C-alpha cells in the first residue's frame, strides 16, 4: 500500500516536471526550427549580400535578396516610435503615479488598459482610414502610407506598455527617498525629477526595451499603413517594409529560395528579439542587485 502510494507520487512528480519543461521545449523547438529553416538561404545567398544588399527583388527574373531595406526600416520605425511614444508615455506615467487624484487615476488607468487591449488590426484599420489620408493632405505627398504613418501607429501601440512599466517603476521607489528630499526643502517637482525618476531609472529603461520589442515585432498594423514597398527608409514618407511585414507579405505565395529567404528574415528578427530579451533581463537583474 505504502509502496504504491510512493510510486504514484513519483509518477505525478514526473508529470509535473514534464509540464514544467514545456516552455523550455517550446523555446528550443522554435530556435531550432528557425535556425534550420533560415540558415540555408543565408548560406546560399551569402551572409554579406543578404544582410547588406540594398535590393530586394524576390520575384524578378534575376532575383535579388538584400534585406538591408527591411532592417533599416524596422530600426527607423522603432526609433521613431520610441521618440514619439516614450515622452508621452513617460509623462503620462508620472501623472498617474504622482499627480492624479484617485478617481482620475482609476479612469486613466482603465483607459491605458483599453488601449493595450485593442487588437493590432484595429489600429491598422484606423491608421488606414484616418492617419494615412491625414498624412497625405497635411504634407501634400501622393500617398500617406509610409514610414511616418507606421511610426505614429507604433508610437500609440507601445504607449500602454511604457506607461504601465514606468508607473510600476515609479511606485516602487521607497517612500523614504522622497520624504528625505522633501524634508531637505525640495519642492515636490524637484523631488520627482532629481530623486524619484533617477531612482526608478532601471525600471524606466526596462520600459523602453519592452517598447522597442513590441514595436520591432509588430506586423499587421504596420502592414496596413507602411505602404509595403521594399525601399530604403530615406524619407519619412517613403513606402517601406519592415522585417515583420517582409515575412508576412510574401509568405502565402512563396516557394523555393524565396520562401527560405523569408525564413532567414524571421531568423534575423528572432535574433534581434533575443538580444532585446537578454538586455531586458540584464537591466532587471541589475536592479535586483542594488
Amino acid at each position: 500500500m505504502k509502496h504504491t502510494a510512493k510510486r504514484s507520487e513519483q509518477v505525478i512528480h514526473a508529470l509535473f516536471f514534464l509540464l514544467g519543461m514545456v516552455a523550455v521545449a517550446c523555446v528550443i523547438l522554435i530556435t531550432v526550427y528557425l535556425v534550420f529553416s533560415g540558415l540555408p538561404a543565408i548560406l546560399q545567398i551569402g551572409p554579406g549580400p543578404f544582410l547588406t544588399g540594398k535590393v530586394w527583388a524576390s520575384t524578378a527574373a534575376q532575383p535579388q535578396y538584400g534585406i538591408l531595406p527591411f532592417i533599416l526600416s524596422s530600426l527607423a520605425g522603432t526609433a521613431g516610435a520610441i521618440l514619439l511614444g516614450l515622452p508621452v508615455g513617460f509623462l503620462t506615467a508620472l501623472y498617474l503615479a504622482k499627480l492624479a487624484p484617485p478617481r482620475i487615476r482609476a479612469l486613466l488607468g482603465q483607459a491605458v488598459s483599453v488601449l493595450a487591449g485593442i487588437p493590432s488590426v484595429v489600429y491598422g484599420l484606423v491608421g488606414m482610414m484616418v492617419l494615412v489620408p491625414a498624412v497625405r493632405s497635411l504634407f501634400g505627398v501622393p500617398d500617406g502610407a509610409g514610414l511616418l504613418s507606421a511610426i505614429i501607429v507604433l508610437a500609440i501601440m507601445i504607449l500602454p506598455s511604457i506607461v504601465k512599466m514606468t508607473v510600476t517603476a515609479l511606485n516602487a521607489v521607497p517612500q523614504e527617498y522622497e520624504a528625505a528630499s522633501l524634508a531637505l526643502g525640495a519642492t515636490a517637482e524637484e523631488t520627482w525629477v532629481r530623486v524619484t525618476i533617477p531612482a526608478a531609472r532601471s525600471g524606466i529603461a526596462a520600459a523602453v526595451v519592452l517598447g522597442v520589442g513590441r514595436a520591432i515585432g509588430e506586423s499587421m498594423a504596420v502592414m496596413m499603413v507602411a505602404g509595403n514597398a521594399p525601399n530604403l527608409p530615406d524619407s519619412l514618407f517613403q513606402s517601406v517594409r519592415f522585417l515583420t511585414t517582409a515575412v508576412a507579405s510574401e509568405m502565402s505565395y512563396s516557394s523555393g529560395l524565396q520562401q527560405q529567404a523569408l525564413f532567414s528574415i524571421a531568423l534575423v528578427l528572432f535574433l534581434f528579439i533575443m538580444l532585446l530579451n537578454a538586455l531586458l533581463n540584464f537591466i532587471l537583474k541589475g536592479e535586483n542587485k542594488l
Partner: protein
Amino acid sequence: MMMTSSPRRPLVPLVRVLSLLAAGLTALLTLFLIGYILLQGLPHLSWELVSTSPSYISQRVGILPDLLNTLYITLTTLLFVLPLGVGAAVYLTEYASSRRLAGAIEYAAEALAGIPSIIYGLVGMLLFSNTLGTSLMAGALTLVIMNLPTIMRNTQESLKTVPQSYREGAFGLGAGKWRVIRTVVLPNCLEGVVTGCILSVGRILGESAALLFTAGFAHTANDFFTALSSPGATLTVALYVYAKEQGEFGAAFAIAAILMLLALAINLLATLSAKFFQRRNAS
C-alpha cells in the same frame, strides 16, 4: 547634489504641466479610438451581418463563420493551455528544487512572451500546419505556445500567496504531496487562473499575424469538430482581409466595433474579477 546645482530652474514646475498634457493626450487618444470605431462600425452591424455566411452570388458579406471560428479557437486554445500553464506553475512553486532549472524555465517563459506573433505564425506553420493541414487546430496550437507564459505567470503569482503554513498543516496531517497540491494548493490559485484566462482570451481575440498562415482565411460556417480540421478566419483575420484585400470597409468597421466591444468587456471583466478576489481575500 541639490546645493551644487544651479538656482532652481523654472523648468522644473513645467514637469507638472507637461505630464498633465501627456495624460490628456493619452486619454483623448483612447476616447477618440473607442468613439471612432464604434461610430463607424455600429451602423454596419446588423443581424444579417452576424447571422450569415458571405456569399459571392448574392454579394452578401456575413461574419457568422468568423464569429464561430473565433469562439472555437478561443475555447480550444484555453482547453490546451490551461493544464499546461497551471501544471508548469505548480511544478515551479511546489516541486522544482533546483534553482537553476527553475531559472531556466522562467527565462524560457519570458522569452516566449517576447517573441513576435509573426514568428509564432511561421513556426506554427512549419510545426502544425504542415502536419495537421491549415486548420483552426493548427492555429489554436500555435496560440497555446503564445499564451503559455501568461497562464504560467499569473498562476505562479497566486500560488506564491498560498501561505506555507497551509501546506505544512496538510503535510502534518499525513497527506502526500499530490494530495496537498490537489486539496490545498490548487483551490487557492483560482484567482491567478481566472486572471490568466481573461488576459489570454484578450490576446487570442486580438491575434492575427500568428493565425494568418496557420488557420487560414476561409469563411465557412462549420460545427465545432469540422471547424477544427478545416481552415477558417477569425474576426481579426477577417478584418484584415476585408480592409486590406477586398476593400469591404463596412464589414471591416463592423468587425472592428465587435472587437472593440469585446476588448472593453474583457477590461471590465478583469476589473470586476480583481475586485471580487480582493473582497474575498479580505474577508
